[in-house]
């Protein structure tokens, strides 16, 4: 058994070497398609990051009456937190903080400065800024909780109804982007699989007559098929090494440029934190498609 295994391996390497031209072509196609799939994986990461950034900008604000004590607001904050597990972040902004934020934001704007002087006192209300982990419905639920009668003595207004349309639009856009990305990924993966399958079919087709002769002289299905399957593994492994090196290089080269366009996103960090998944995708795609394609194509010619 071990002897036969060694023989099959030797045949696989010999055929690989003797068919250099077509072997290199097959590896090239496999590298391109594996890189395409790796690219899709990175695109998924980038789009997830962008969607998260956009979603993080969504919040609702509960404004309290100006005479509400900070202590009461903090108690309400705790109660809201208890009542709604979907809250990602809830931040108390006092009247002073709101005023400071405003003046800082509009520093140098004489119109706003004059208006504040004319009003005389601090016109801002204390508030709670709330973000959730979920969609519009969750924001609506939180808004409903805040507007319950037990809080009505303290609450001036909740801006959910004003922001509802915007929130819905953002969620709809992000959802559509995700769907489109998924659809595009499926189509591209299918195209990649078909291209690789047909290329490997060419590799096996070249040996069609040889397979037929092997059968005529009495070789078992395994003895004929195994070298081609091992060749598929060789193609997959070489393609993986090439793709992995290219991915490392591209991650390094593009990382700084991307972090300028998308502050907070580091391509090299994304690569490092998803190293195992990337290895699995590149090695898995190359080897599995190599083996399966060889198996299917050789099977066709074994019927001799």
């Amino acid at each position, binding site marked *: 058994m071990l002897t*036969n295994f060694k023989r099959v391996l030797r045949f696989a390497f010999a055929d690989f070497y*003797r068919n250099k031209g077509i072997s290199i072509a097959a590896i090239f196609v496999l590298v391109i398609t594996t890189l395409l799939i790796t690219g899709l994986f990175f695109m998924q990461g980038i789009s997830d990051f962008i969607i998260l950034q956009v979603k993080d900008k969504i919040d609702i604000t509960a404004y309290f009456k100006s005479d509400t004590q900070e202590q009461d607001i903090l108690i309400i904050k705790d109660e809201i937190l208890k009542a709604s597990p979907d809250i990602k972040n809830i931040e108390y902004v006092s009247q002073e903080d709101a005023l400071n934020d405003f003046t800082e934001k509009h520093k140098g704007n004489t119109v706003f400065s004059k208006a504040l002087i004319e009003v005389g006192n601090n016109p801002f209300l204390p508030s709670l800024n709330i973000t959730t982990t979920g969609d519009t419905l969750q924001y609506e639920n939180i808004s409903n909780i805040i507007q319950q009668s037990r809080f009505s003595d303290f609450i001036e207004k909740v801006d959910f109804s004003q922001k509802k349309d915007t929130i819905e639009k953002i969620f709809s856009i992000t959802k559509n982007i995700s769907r489109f990305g998924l659809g595009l990924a499926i189509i591209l993966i299918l195209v990649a699989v078909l291209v690789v399958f047909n290329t490997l079919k060419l590799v096996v087709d070249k040996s069609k007559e*040889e397979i037929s*002769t*092997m059968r*005529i002289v*009495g*070789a078992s299905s395994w003895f004929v098929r195994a070298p081609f399957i091992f060749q598929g593994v060789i193609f997959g492994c070489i393609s993986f090494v090439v793709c992995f090196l290219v991915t490392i290089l591209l991650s390094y080269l593009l990382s700084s440029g991307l972090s300028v366009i998308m502050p907070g996103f580091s391509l090299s960090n994304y690569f490092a934190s998803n190293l195992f998944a990337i290895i699995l995708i590149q090695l898995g795609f190359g080897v599995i498609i190599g083996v399966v394609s060889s198996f299917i194509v050789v099977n066709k010619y074994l019927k001799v």
Partner: protein
Amino acid sequence: MIKFKNVTKIYPPNSVVLEDISFEIKEGEFISIVGKSGAGKTTLIRIILGLEKATYGEVFFDGQNISAIDSDGLQKIRRRIGGIYQDYKLLPLKTVYENVSYIMAIEGKDNEEIKKEVPRILEVIGLGEKINNFPRELSGGEQQRLAVARAFVNHPDIIIADEPTGNLDPYNTYEVISLLEKINKAGKTVILSTHDREIINKLGKRVVTIENGKIIRDEEKGRFII
């Protein structure tokens, strides 16, 4: 050893290549199947090898019905047959050495035996110098001799030679036929398909003549008469 029982082969839609063929090949026999091109000789051989199935009738190999046998069983039968063909059927991506050693590897022979036997048989057949060449680097005669070496290396029970001298010059033709005779003298069954009158008449062995898919003559020590 091999028995044809009312075998008919029809290729769609209605091309009858063999019609109601019945005959038997005994162990150790040297049988020549003769006929014009297109008479059905190659189809008959392809049926023995399990490359074609009879449309009607049965073919038995040591009592086993070839048409009813599974893939593994068929491969076991093929391993008992050494084939020499007009188009050589060599493995183009394998060297001379590998073409012969492949047959031994199929049989599960160990490396020591292969390393000893393959160079020996290649030396006998006159290809000892070309052990690392590929079939495309050999002449027609050399390729046919390689096919002969491959057919003999496992000492099969039967040698099937389908037009083995078709591409050979008279000298190589004589060499191949002499080898087949030697093999037969060693007790192996030889089935020779040819349309070479001179060879048949010189052999003086059993001759089965096929014409238009039918056996028209089956004679011990027969001659080529068409």
